[in-house]
């Protein structure tokens, strides 16, 4: 089936002859996955801007997030809770309901500082969404982490035994690679 999907993509199977394939892909989750992955690979090869496989889920989750983020009460956004992507939608809607109930009682007695902090967090989150041109799988948790209040202790970058930040080594290799660094990466910064 995989070979046939590939052939269909390469125009080696006529569309008229591919009905069984289409039906197969619809019935079979793996086939549909292969279909979308081959498209992703093709898009990348052609230099088109590829969307991440979880694009739809990410987008829906973000659309759900957005109006709530812009409200002055962003208390739950400030919770450093990282939610699992698969149930992000459910969680977000549950949170929203809880928040709507809470916000009525909070809205009146919140100090001004809090609402400023909340709007700052909101602006940061929105800014991050705009900056993030290619959203990967981990995007949602990352953005929540960005919105955590500044009094939280910043996590230190990973360093290797010499105290050299691994992130900098990787950045150097990405922008100024040596001929062998495409193939050999020092053990300290392979994942």
């Amino acid at each position, binding site marked *: 089936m995989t070979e046939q999907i590939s052939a269909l993509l390469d125009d080696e199977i006529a569309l008229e002859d591919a009905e069984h394939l289409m039906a197969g892909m619809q019935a079979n989750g793996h086939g549909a996955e292969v279909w979308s992955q081959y498209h992703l690979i093709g898009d990348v*090869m052609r230099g088109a801007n590829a969307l991440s496989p979880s694009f739809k889920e990410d987008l829906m989750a973000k659309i759900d997030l957005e109006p709530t983020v812009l409200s002055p009460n962003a208390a739950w956004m400030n919770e450093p809770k990282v939610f699992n992507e698969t149930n992000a939608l459910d969680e977000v809607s549950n949170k929203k309901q809880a928040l709507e109930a809470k916000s009525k009682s909070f809205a009146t007695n919140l100090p001004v500082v809090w609402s400023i902090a909340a709007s700052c967090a909101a602006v940061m989150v929105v800014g991050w969404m705009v900056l993030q041109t290619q959203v990967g799988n981990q995007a949602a948790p990352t953005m929540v982490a960005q919105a955590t209040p500044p009094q939280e202790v910043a996590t230190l970058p990973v360093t290797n035994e010499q105290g050299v930040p691994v992130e900098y080594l990787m950045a150097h290799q990405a*922008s100024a*690679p040596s001929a062998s660094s495409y193939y050999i990466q020092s053990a300290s910064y392979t994942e």
Partner: protein
Amino acid sequence: MKGFVLACLLASALSNTSQRVLAASDDDKWQILQKAALAAHALSYQGIFVCQSGQQSKSVQIKHFFDGQNEFARNVLLDGSPREVLSQGSDLIIYNPKNEKIVIEKRRGQNMFPAVLPANLAAVKQSYTLRTGDIERIAGRSAQILFLEPKDDLRYSYRFWIDTEYGLILKSVMFNGRNEMMDSISFTQLNLVNTVDLDWFKPKIDSKKNYVMEDEPPAQADYNPSPHWMLKELPAGYRKVDQMLRTVHGKPLPVTHVVFSDGLASVSLFIEPVTNGVKPRAGHSVVGNTSFYSTVAGYLQITVLGEVPEATVAAIANSVVFVK
């Protein structure tokens, strides 16, 4: 048009080597190197080369195709995890297997073996001297050795084995100041190809794995007109070639990343504000081929690293001055 010019240059370069004499003049030697820089882009070839760096060694299968206008290359790691690098001109796509996923990374490519030399050798000429050595046999082919030696101790030396017929670099080795081999890349098998189709120009797809784009946000151009730093005198021969803003994991603000090059060696400079409550880093270290140097300038944490001698990373770090 570009392809035509390349072909002409290559043809003239080729006729030059056929008349190569033992006591080549300085110009002739640089001509061989110039031709090697060109041949890597303008020839179509396939083969296998071995990369060696520190304790590690990896074989890579390469196929490179030039249609007179565009360059296509596919490099597949044969040892260990089957990473693939596909390049079209300077656009690079890396298929990097990580656990159960295959991460797709996009890069701007440069100096991929055997195209390790810049097209313009003027900067290299300024900082290195060139001398010819013996003829040796590499990957079953006859090769002219060229020694590229630094004029000072701010860079490492290189040795190139150049195919006497094709003009291609067959082997490239970098040595440090104590003449110890830092890394080496060498063809074990090479032949020219006469393809027209591009059937091979695609990654091998593993249908059992998930393909995902890397989630690292791409670096952005740095447009800040008045940064809180400036560069005093840089070490001889090094020029700034790139500057960008990078989001680094664990850092609240984007970090400024500046890249310097002397034509062959590259150095990265990272500038960020000193973080409150974090002890600033200072000192130097060497990991593998890479030298590191950290220092503080005013309220800025400076980190410099590159495949260059310690003196060079220190000089670049110390050239950064804090400006209020």
